[in-house]
């Protein structure tokens, strides 16, 4: 799952992800979190 997320955000060349509000607990599974781990473009 996380690898797939990383591919998504990497190929999209984006700087942020907008979506329904996640909780602190939900953040780790979010695309925004995956994007942050990749480092900012």
């Amino acid at each position: 799952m996380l690898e797939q997320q990383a591919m998504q955000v990497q190929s999209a060349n984006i700087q942020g992800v907008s979506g329904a509000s996640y909780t602190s607990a939900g953040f780790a599974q979010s695309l925004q979190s995956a994007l942050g781990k990749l480092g900012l473009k």
Partner: protein
Amino acid sequence: MASASEELAQRLHTVHHLEQVMGTVVTIDIYVGTGGSDLEVFSRLEQALDVLHDADHVFSTWKSDSSISHLRRGEITLDQAPAVVGDVLEACRVARALSEGWFDPWAMRGGVDPTGFVKGWAAQRALQVLAAPGIPGAIVNAAGDIASFGGPGEASTFRFGIVDPFSHERLACIVGLVGALATSGTYEQGLHLVDPHSGQPITRVASASVCGPDLGLADALATGLAVAGDPGLAVIEGIEGYEAMIIGLDGTWQWTRRFPFADGPALPPVQETSRPASLRDKRQSLNRSTPTLSPWAPPR
């Protein structure tokens, strides 16, 4: 292959910060220019974090000792609350009027609840603290509601993905903008939206996104749009500077005429250079589509 703007962006360095606040994680990205000093940047970052924590302290409905909780329980009057409470409720009144009643903190159970506005408002205020010489761009992303200024490089806008509400590990589409982008949906935390007209919990869309200059208003409008569904789109069309798109419960997409899709709506992730101009033009004339498959299916 890096474009010119990407190469420029790489010459800037970025400060990436995660802050646990307001019951969620707020992501802050600061693009530091060649003239920016780290001391200045980190001082600004600290001030921005204070803005978020202060907002949490005053407006959290989860904290029993917050000003808004005292107000909701009738233990204090508005006059006894910090002045910022009055400011926020006044801004909520404006948002309620602009949304034609679809966003209504006074219709919430348990007394006035400006939560649908406050997170965006606080993120926008935090962003404003970061506006300084030597910081050509910054993003504050409060749990999926984004405030931004500047850009990732010279003469380029930010690209922000919108989560596919039916498959959260994918993006539904990408928008290109500088400013605010808020998305409301129930797929993360369940049914928490209330129809101000009936008082009942409801959502009429899978995902509702609103962009514009200010994240407080965009957040409120996205909340209202998720409750309103289709009729809400016409309301946003009438608000200057704000655009919206909704993904219906049946997967249908609809959007206002100038919604800034970066790569055109419902298009597969093809290379910028290989996309025919005709596809980009279509988004001007279409405002409805039913994708037969998720537009961002990753390669298998």
